[in-house]
């Protein structure tokens, strides 16, 4: 208690002297750690574990304590987190109009375990000025089931470990950490000595735990904390999602197909699956940690859905389609328990005019959702996502822009695919992204391309021509006289 106070005091002293030293170092900013040019005047860290992924919000009031304007703010991560983080977005809390913040994960020092999110401010902040940043991101695969294996009708508990002090590369003078939990049933969580009038952290109100407010903490201060909470819902995790969007101008149709590799990351069954218990639980204890069904709210006007897996059509599904909604409800062939896998495929068609329109200068613009996963109360997370937009044969200068955070897009390129009597093959735009969650569904993907008339007429002509050649050749062959003796 006392020692820590002393320690912190010392740190504060150090931080006081730091600017002077920083002045000398800033020109040659050592790559290993970001320069100490900021101070977090006030910071509120919200960790919400309500869904089966972690959503973190860092609202921080940053102050430029260096002498010259700065436009780069760094957020430290462990390498492990860096592989699981996704959907990083930064806003200016004060004015939403503030231009786009450049966000990317950088590795200043390959040797160290720490990596950084570099946030480029739209406008450099002059010395002493302050700005309120709202940084939000998701962490996937964040939980461990504890106990790791439970009975079929037991409650599932997950544990999540984090740092009571918000990870920061800068001195933080005032901060607090809030943990939002899905239920009030929290068997155990880390307790910390309180400060001020609160004698013990965290303060627990309802489904919320609050650590802090803490007084000034130095850069990189870390206080391990852990919380174990009841999460009696499936921890559904999509290791890979392949999403194909095929545009057909002749057919006036846009065909969607999505292939999911779904796995339940929750607690395994401690003993074998028991059908009797399950049948009873369906009636008596409907809330279970097994995944029973998924709802896909599709765009209105979607038609001809299908739901199959590797051994064929799955008959347990319902599709409700009307003016207002097109809801596809599918059940896996078997209830999905912890550690069980279920890969499946769904697909549907939609009228092209819902997504495709022609610009004044003859080009086309396709506007489709980047991601249309199921909408589940407990959420769902996607580790790898691959979107393939197949444009008609001969489509050229393809450009795209998406509202999905750019830090999640790992790669994009143009391929060529030959199908259905193609001669030069179709243009395919392949976008790979990672670490997305279902909150990002409906983020739109806009693809613009040119499609000249000649390209659209190519195939009919070729088919017609080849058919004609075939007929003519058969006719000629038929008239040949192959007999040896002409009788």
């Amino acid at each position, binding site marked *: 208690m006392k020692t820590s106070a002393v320690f912190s005091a010392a740190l504060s002293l150090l931080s006081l002297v730091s600017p002077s030293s920083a002045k000398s170092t800033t020109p040659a900013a050592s790559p290993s750690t970001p320069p100490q040019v900021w101070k977090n005047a006030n910071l509120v860290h919200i960790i919400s574990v309500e869904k089966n992924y972690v959503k973190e919000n860092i609202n921080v009031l940053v102050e430029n304590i260096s002498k010259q304007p700065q436009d780069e703010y760094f957020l430290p991560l462990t390498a492990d987190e860096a592989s699981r983080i996704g959907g990083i977005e930064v806003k200016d809390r004060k004015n939403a109009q503030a231009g786009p913040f450049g966000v990317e994960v950088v590795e200043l020092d390959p040797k160290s375990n720490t990596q950084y999110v570099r946030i480029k401010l739209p406008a450099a902040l002059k010395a002493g000025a302050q700005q309120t940043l709202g940084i939000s991101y998701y962490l996937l695969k964040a939980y461990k089931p504890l106990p790791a294996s439970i009975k079929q009708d037991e409650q599932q508990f997950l544990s999540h470990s984090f740092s009571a002090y918000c990870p920061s590369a800068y001195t933080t003078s005032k901060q607090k950490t809030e943990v939002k939990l899905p239920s009030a049933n929290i068997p155990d969580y880390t307790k910390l000595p309180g400060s001020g009038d609160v004698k013990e952290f965290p303060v627990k109100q309802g489904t919320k735990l609050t650590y802090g407010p803490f007084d000034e903490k130095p850069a990189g201060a870390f206080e391990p904390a852990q919380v174990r909470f009841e999460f009696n819902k499936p921890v559904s995790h999509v290791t890979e999602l392949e999403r194909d969007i095929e545009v057909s101008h002749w057919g006036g149709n846009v065909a969607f*197909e999505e292939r999911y590799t779904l796995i339940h990351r929750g607690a395994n069954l401690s*003993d*074998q*699956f*028991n*059908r*009797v218990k399950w*049948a009873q639980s369906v009636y008596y204890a409907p809330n279970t940690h097994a995944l029973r069904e998924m709802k896909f709210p599709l765009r209105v006007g979607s*038609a*001809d*859905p*299908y*739901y*199959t*897996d*590797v*051994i*064929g*059509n*799955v*008959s*347990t*599904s*319902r*599709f409700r389609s009307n003016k207002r909604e097109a809801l596809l409800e599918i059940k896996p*062939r*078997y209830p999905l328990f912890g*550690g*069980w*896998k*279920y*890969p499946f*495929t769904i*697909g549907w*068609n939609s009228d092209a005019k819902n997504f495709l329109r022609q610009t004044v200068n003859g080009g086309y613009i396709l506007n489709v959702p980047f991601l249309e996963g199921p909408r589940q109360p407990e959420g769902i997370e996607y580790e790898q996502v691959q979107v393939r937009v197949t444009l008609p044969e001969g489509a050229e200068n393809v450009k795209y822009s998406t509202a999905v955070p750019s830090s999640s897009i790992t790669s994009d390129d143009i391929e060529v695919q*030959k*199908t*259905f*009597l*193609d001669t030069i093959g179709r243009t395919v735009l392949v976008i790979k992204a990672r670490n997305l969650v279902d909150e990002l569904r409906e983020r739109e993907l806009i693809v613009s391309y040119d499609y000249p008339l000649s390209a659209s007429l190519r195939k009919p002509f070729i088919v017609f021509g080849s058919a004609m050649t075939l007929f003519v050749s058969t006719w000629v062959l038929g008239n040949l006289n192959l007999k040896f003796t002409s009788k």
Partner: protein
Amino acid sequence: MSADTLQVLASAGKGESTRTILRFIILSLIAGAAIASRLFSVIRKCPLSAGSQLLSWQSRPSRRGQLSGLLRLSAFWAALLTAASFQVSRALFTNVGSPSLSQSCARAERQSRMVADNPLVDPWFNFRATKYLVANGFYKFWDWFDDRTWHPLGRVTGGTLYPGLMVTSGAIYHALRALTIPVDIRNICVLLAPAFSGLTAFAAYLLTNEMTPSPSAGLLAAIFMGIAPGYISRSVAGSYDNEAIAIFLLVFTFFLWIRALKQGSMLWGVLCALFYGYMVASWGGYAFITCLLPLHAFVLICMGRYSTRLYVAYTTWYALGTLASMQIPFVGFLPVKTSEHMPALGIFGFLQLLAFLDYVRSAIPSRQFQTFLWLFAGGTFGLGLAALVVATSAGFIAPWSGRFYSLWDTGYAKIHIPIIASVSEHQPTAWPAFFFDLNMLIWLFPAGVYLCFQNLADEHVFIVVYALFGSYFAGVMVRLMLTLTPVVCVAAAISASSLLDTYLNVKSPNAEEHPADDNTDGKKSGKTGLKSTSKPVVGIYGWLSKGTVAGAMTVYLLLFVMHCTWVTSNAYSSPSVVLASRMPDGSQHIIDDYREAYQWLRQNTKEDAKIMSWWDYGYQIGGMADRPTLVDNNTWNNTHIATVGKAMSSREEVSYPIMRQHEVDYVLVVFGGLLGYSGDDINKFLWMVRIAEGIWPDEVKEREFFTPRGEYRVDGEATETMKNSLMYKMSYYNYNSLFPPGQAQDRVRQSRLPEVGPSLSTIEEAFTSENWIIRIYKVKDLDNFGRDHASAAAFDRGLKKKKAAKKRGPRQLRVD
């Protein structure tokens, strides 16, 4: 298509070319309809349009005024047929279809439901083999050793299957790929059978045209072939089985044979031989051709109809065909070793002899010499026969193979090869089955055969022989209804067409002058001709009689169409892996337990987990669950199957070592008790027992599964052996916990089960499908404390005391 049809009709008079064009168009329509009728289970919109096309062009009176009788007929038939196909298909569709998604024509839906819903099990293996072929190429497929079946033996699959089917679809696949059509091999496999059914209709047309001058007979035959339930049963989309292409090959080979025989041309003989080779590569039923053609030749010879045509056709066919057939590893040297091929060889030799004698006779025209020669010929034939018998008995020539032999001595299979007897397809055919599969044709068929006697040319002899042969086999085995259907269609078409030609003839004769007709050749020979055809043909006078008969025939044909619709929708479109049932409110409910369980196995067990189940499910598990199995539907190793049967029918203590030795990880049983699904393992259990008893007569005894009063029961009265058998325990384990105590009810056996259900110690329940149809058990590993499983399980159940008492013997020994 309808558009250009109309063009042709409009432009055309009654030129021969027009007729051919029209005939061709109609034929293609028939083939198309035949195909479509098998596709309805998947595609819905398309056949509707096809139907409307045909009907629309048929309902053009102005056009029809100009058409010849043939055209009128064919138009009527085509329309009728399309209606037929339409109905058949609709019926098919309404029957298979998943509640929500059936609305979609989506390709994935198509492929998936189809292969899933085939009425048989073999398609799963064929599909798997085809995938292997497409993936690894032909030569690897040729020597494919499959270690995922018959664990731990494995199976030399490449050498023990008929590759024709797989190679066909593989070739189609690569051809389409070359055209950059991205078709999934699965789709090809699903749609292969319907496509070939269209070809079969075409082949039937050709074959019939060889038989009769009447041009409409061929079309009729094509129609009958197209919608006869006996053939639809094996060619609905998704029944990806050898028969799918074999029947086409059968009919086409026969056509080529007739053509070769009539023209005595070597070219057609060669073609016949090639298609025969294809047939051999495709189906074990090729032996049917191998026996039928020699028989035909023999009958012709006995009728004194030996001719150089016969000689050329037969020798060409036999020499090349046998060589071709020996290229198939599975067949190998059978054509010269086994006795089902001996007739062909014998006739071959006999023909050589006859040719020689014929030559000599032409050289030396002396009567006694001829008679001597004939005696000589007969003698040699007899000698050859005797030699054959001796060779067979001495074992130089293998006797009839079991399946084949069971066709002759029909009691044979029951005693010697219970596996064959256990297959439902190998049961004899009761008469309702005949009427069910070919309703009106069954009585048109003899009439057609009789008409063949009218002018008994060589090809007609063939039809007669085929009819006798085929109807005998069809009577012996339900399955061989398939080989009977073509000849029934042909003969029925002949009779129906001649009937209709007679009564739809526009011009009536007037009483005084009797116009001579062309088909009175029957009457020229009073002795050999038919008695009924001695008088000249006059024709039909009154319109009334014409109208009556034509009308009646129309009614019968419409009835036939409706019958086919009904049969196809009720019998042949109900898949084996997906059971459709009606909910109380009439809505359809799909029971999909098989695929549920197989998918569970596929996803949540380790890649090489060995599954033990009865052999009926081997192919399905291999195909859908993709897991190694102990036995499967290719029942090449009786002992292995008997081992499984023993494990299923013995006590746990006996079965456990067996399962350990075979590294079994999971055991799968099918249990219909909850749903009233009668095709479950308890009902098949006796076959397992019998087959096991065949190998271990001392350890497994069928009698012990019957109550003293000789009943086969599963309730409280069941024998101890029954109650302790692994199969019984696995089927009813934990079952009565579904019911209030003492109320457990088996809905298949209609019996109440004992109060306390069986308890398992060496295996544990791993998965049970939604309706309990499939139950999967995990074989426990050895106990950690080295206890035997019984006591371990007893300990877990907290029954330690009682168990201990039982183990330590009588109570008074435990005084100390």
